[in-house]
């Protein structure tokens, strides 16, 4: 899976020497992207609803369900959500839904329920479905899973730049093994026996993304905002790249300057350029926008 490690420096980013894409995706004040890839386009659906967020961790479950249904229809081009779920999940699949339990901004239960409902619509019995985070290596459904659905909120993170869909698989292995260089090698997590080739859908929760940290690990609602969105794709890198751009744009608006993430979220660009997990460049992302468009930041 791994390609060649690149010795990127700040100068490479600025000069556009092989790192122009990385410069864009990691959040340095960057020149334009100019990547070359053999991969095809990645379709990413951004759907937003003005009324889905009522407050901190207060979401309208029926609107979440409606948004996810519309998103999968737009993503897979089928007549309805049931047909879409049937396209990606077989009745005999064992499905692990990789969630995120960070206490301040977990994957909302409303999103988890909407995904479970979709999997059930595909004919999977309840006993073959599990939602989990820290326990996934011990969870018997995850251990015998044949399909994974990946979902989490995007937030800034003091060691990896952002908590991303790519990073969300870190509980499938020993997390400290992936901490070097601001978690640059997170894409390796997608090539483990328990994950390889299993992911059928990624749902990046952008209902109330976090755009700034307090200290290394604290949280305050001052640094989230009611974006009211979901980003849905089969390509986790493309979904993360889009979410990252939204967070960067929010930081520009709030801080009044191009303030890079600390640290840079280069694991997203490297998931493309070094690991070939997906597309991080906007030139390879087919963005489908649905719903509320005001202040979409993209």
């Amino acid at each position, binding site marked *: 899976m791994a390609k060649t490690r690149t010795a990127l420096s700040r100068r490479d980013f600025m000069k556009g020497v092989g790192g122009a894409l990385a410069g864009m995706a990691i959040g340095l004040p960057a020149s334009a992207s100019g990547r070359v890839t053999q991969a095809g386009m990645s379709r990413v659906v951004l759907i937003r609803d003005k009324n889905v967020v009522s407050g901190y961790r207060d979401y309208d479950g029926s609107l979440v369900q409606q948004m996810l249904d519309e998103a999968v229809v737009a993503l897979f081009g089928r007549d309805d959500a049931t047909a879409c779920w049937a396209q990606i999940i077989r009745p005999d699949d064992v499905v692990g839904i990789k969630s995120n339990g960070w206490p301040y901004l977990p994957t909302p239960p409303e999103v988890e329920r909407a995904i479970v409902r979709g999997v059930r619509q595909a004919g999977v019995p309840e006993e073959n479905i599990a939602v989990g985070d820290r326990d996934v290596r011990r969870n018997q459904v995850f251990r015998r899973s044949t399909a994974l659905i990946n979902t989490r909120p995007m937030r800034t993170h003091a060691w990896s730049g952002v908590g991303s869909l790519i990073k969300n698989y870190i509980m499938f292995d020993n997390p400290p093994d992936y901490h070097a260089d601001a978690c640059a090698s997170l894409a390796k997590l997608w090539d483990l026996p328990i994950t390889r080739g299993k992911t059928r859908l990624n749902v990046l929760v952008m209902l109330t993304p976090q755009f700034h940290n307090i*200290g290394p690990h604290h949280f305050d609602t001052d640094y989230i905002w009611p974006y009211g969105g979901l980003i849905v794709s089969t390509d986790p890198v493309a979904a993360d790249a889009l979410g990252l751009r939204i967070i960067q744009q929010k930081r520009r608006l709030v801080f009044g300057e191009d303030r890079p993430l600390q640290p840079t979220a280069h694991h997203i660009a490297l998931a493309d350029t070094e690991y070939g997990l997906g597309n991080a460049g906007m030139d390879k992302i087919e963005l489908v926008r649905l719903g509320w468009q005001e202040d979409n930041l993209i």
Partner: protein
Amino acid sequence: MAVYDFLPEHINTWTRSDPAVAYDRETIFDYIDGAGEVYRSFAFREVVVLVYTAQEAPDITVELFDMGNPADAYGVFSYTREREETGIGGGYEQKGRVLCFWQDRYYVCVASKERSDRSDRALPELAGAIAERLPTATDPPELVGMLPDEGRVQFSERFFHLHQSLNYHYYLARENVLDLSSETDAVLARYAPGSTYLLLVRYASADDAAAARASFRRGYLRDTEAAGTVETEAGKFLSHSQRDRYVIVVLDAESERAAVDLLRAAEGRLPPPPQ
């Protein structure tokens, strides 16, 4: 004195409600996930976490980090500091429902479960009461005192040790071109005009410093740029030098002259080499 002794059952009107839980360098990830690496990048030993309650006041979680030494307590405090107030410990910052300060080898955060006017008042009160119980050292690391004052942006100083920390504050390179390690002390600060950075690194020996500067030349500069001041991108200049155990790098200066002036100012603040 044990860390627990700084957090007694009663502090003023607050009462400890939960048994304290402690996490060390190995178990910190159980509490803080990957961001625990920030603490591990210093000489962090353990953090004790507990909750204080008081009548008609929000519950307050107290985290008392033993950072191993005062310089590293300052370092983790400076890591994400945007502002700093005086009056609690060596300095404190209150953002939202969280207040953090450093004092001696301890970094302390008090966090209200809810944000309110009452919590805004309670946080400094409880933090101040804890500070009174800690050892009293509040001098910043010696290296921070070596930074030139003129043009330095207030609260921009960051003290750290590792390559990963440098890249957090200023993304220099993926490779560890300056040979930073737990054995090196480093301070980075921002200077005006513009957004110029001054990096000062102290190595264990002059030989180590010379080797690090050579590594920096090889890893970051091009062959023709090995000496003097370099225009690293349009309108941004880099200058660097080594004096005894110290390597100084000026980054993103607005002119060649500005880069050299700041470099010379930093060199002038260094202690004289041993005779």
